[in-house]
């Protein structure tokens, strides 16, 4: 009876792999802490480097606007944004970060546990929909196609291996496995956040 929660825990933990990847673009000098371009050619005179015109914070997770998340779900499923499979999401839209300034509701784009839980519950109809099954008949077998639509990139070996490893030793129904993988992808920060 506890297998399903364990699967969800594990798979959504794997969603951490969906955190937007970083690429070592700069080498850090261990002594000075200064960075240098890995592609910098030696021996060339360096141009005067302008300071960054502004700073971007790497410390906060900010959700995408609600309408963007809906548009992305529509793209993944191949249905219109007014499809019934999004009804639960639309009903919870303001709790999920949408805005209505006339009613005094600003866009709360904080990604926290309660919002995540609500998001998971609200997208279950999406994962259970015929539209999803038509596009991705089996998961994780069609994970690559789903990630291309959801993330705009192909699945990496890490993506595939992670899901395969977790699912290999479990005995859950195909339906449960499908839903778990779908929820993990559509709840990942790479999907819902900037």
């Amino acid at each position: 009876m506890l297998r399903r929660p364990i699967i969800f825990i594990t798979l959504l933990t794997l969603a951490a792999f969906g955190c937007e990847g970083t690429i070592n673009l700069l080498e850090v000098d261990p002594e000075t802490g200064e960075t240098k371009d890995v592609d910098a050619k030696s021996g060339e005179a360096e141009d005067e480097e302008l300071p960054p015109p502004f700073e971007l914070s790497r410390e906060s997770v900010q959700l995408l606007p609600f309408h963007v998340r809906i548009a992305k779900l529509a793209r993944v499923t191949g249905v219109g944004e007014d499809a019934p499979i999004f009804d639960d999401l639309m009903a919870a839209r303001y709790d999920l970060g949408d805005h209505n300034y006339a009613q005094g509701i600003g866009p709360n784009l904080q990604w926290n546990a309660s919002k995540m839980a609500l998001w998971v519950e609200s997208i279950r109809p999406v994962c259970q929909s015929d539209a999803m099954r038509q596009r991705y008949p089996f998961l994780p077998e069609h994970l690559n196609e789903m990630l291309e639509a959801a993330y705009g990139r192909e699945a990496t070996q890490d993506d595939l291996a992670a899901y395969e490893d977790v699912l290999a030793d479990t005995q859950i129904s195909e339906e449960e496995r499908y839903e778990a993988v779908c929820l993990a992808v559509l709840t990942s920060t790479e999907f819902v956040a900037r």
Partner: protein
Amino acid sequence: MKPLLTMFTALLALQTLAACEQRGELKVTADDPETAVEADFEPFEHPDVPEKTPTPIVEEDSVVEPAETPDISQEETTLYLRSISQMLVGRPLNTLENEQIATEGAAAIRPILEDWTSSPGFADAARYMIQQKLRASGTRDGIDFDLPGNLVRHIVTNDLPYSTILTADYCIDSAGEETACDTGAPYTAGVLTTRAFLAGNASRFNLGRASRMMQVFACRHYPMEDDLQPRLQKESLIPMFQALTPDEQEVEEAKDAFGNGHGCYTCHGQFGAHAQPFVKFDESGIWVESATGKQDPEGELGRSVDGLMTSHMLVDTEKADEGTQIFGERVENLAGAGEVIADSGVFVPCTVRNVIEHTFGLSDSAGEEIDPKLLSAVAARASANGDPGLDEIVVETFVDPRIIDVVLRSKSPGVE
């Protein structure tokens, strides 16, 4: 089973967040106050705040140099465009774009951006941007707060100059069709003459409307540069706003407002000019021809009668006159004010700043820290062929090597 699932879902959420933190990539922070709806609009920028370099003014004869294609790899190009695509077009990169990047590398940035800015997703993004800037969406009390967003979507979809946001002589309904605006005024000034803007920013002395107009379309707070906004003559203002020192302040209710060290006139000599064109719009945004701008003797300081607001001006005929001076130019009403602001050298750089803030989720205070040279350079390039559309502004913003560098640096581990 369901409660158990819900509990474990919450637990795994925490675990996921912890995993992200352990990887040193992402942290969840407290609520951003910038996203909260402002219950009481504070129009004053108290002058004891250190002065910041204001958003630049682009001169007409600015030398325009095209943005250079950055020397970055295909991988970096992909990372960069992935970082901005969702806020600009509401989706991740598609297969064709990935292939284009694989083939062309950094040279693909400009054509991809140009393609994005002709897509419906871009129009939606523009709509969202102005909704946030003007705090205008939804409906209330029969007022359509979606009119400003509708207009911007229309401007983008139809490749109109972005300045149309302040000069359009029509509004756009929810179906995307032209319609009369809703104030009843005998003139129109884009979003400025929508009840959404007017009702949403109504405040005493029309300070809220003036402030929002300057903040969103000129990136200015009060006091601003004298040579941008010459002050009204002190003697033309009501006594309260003539004061430059506590000793000069004769109005009892205003005495406690001191503490800024600069005096009322420093700000209100400019505020008064910008607030005056709003004098005939009541607090719900309806235009009232008979508005006098006179203080309601029974009412709160700054309020006239019948939901209207008090003018800054001393003389009765001037109190009721919608005409004023905006950026040194005489205008007859809010429509004229919109024209002047749209045509000024601050409008496009301010729009560049708004675009950057929108795309990267920067607060207004963070936006004030953006290097003015960057804004000036981008604005000049965008304006090279005349009054730019939002597409040109966005393209020139995101082909800028300095912005590309900021994004790539933010994605690099170990960079402070």
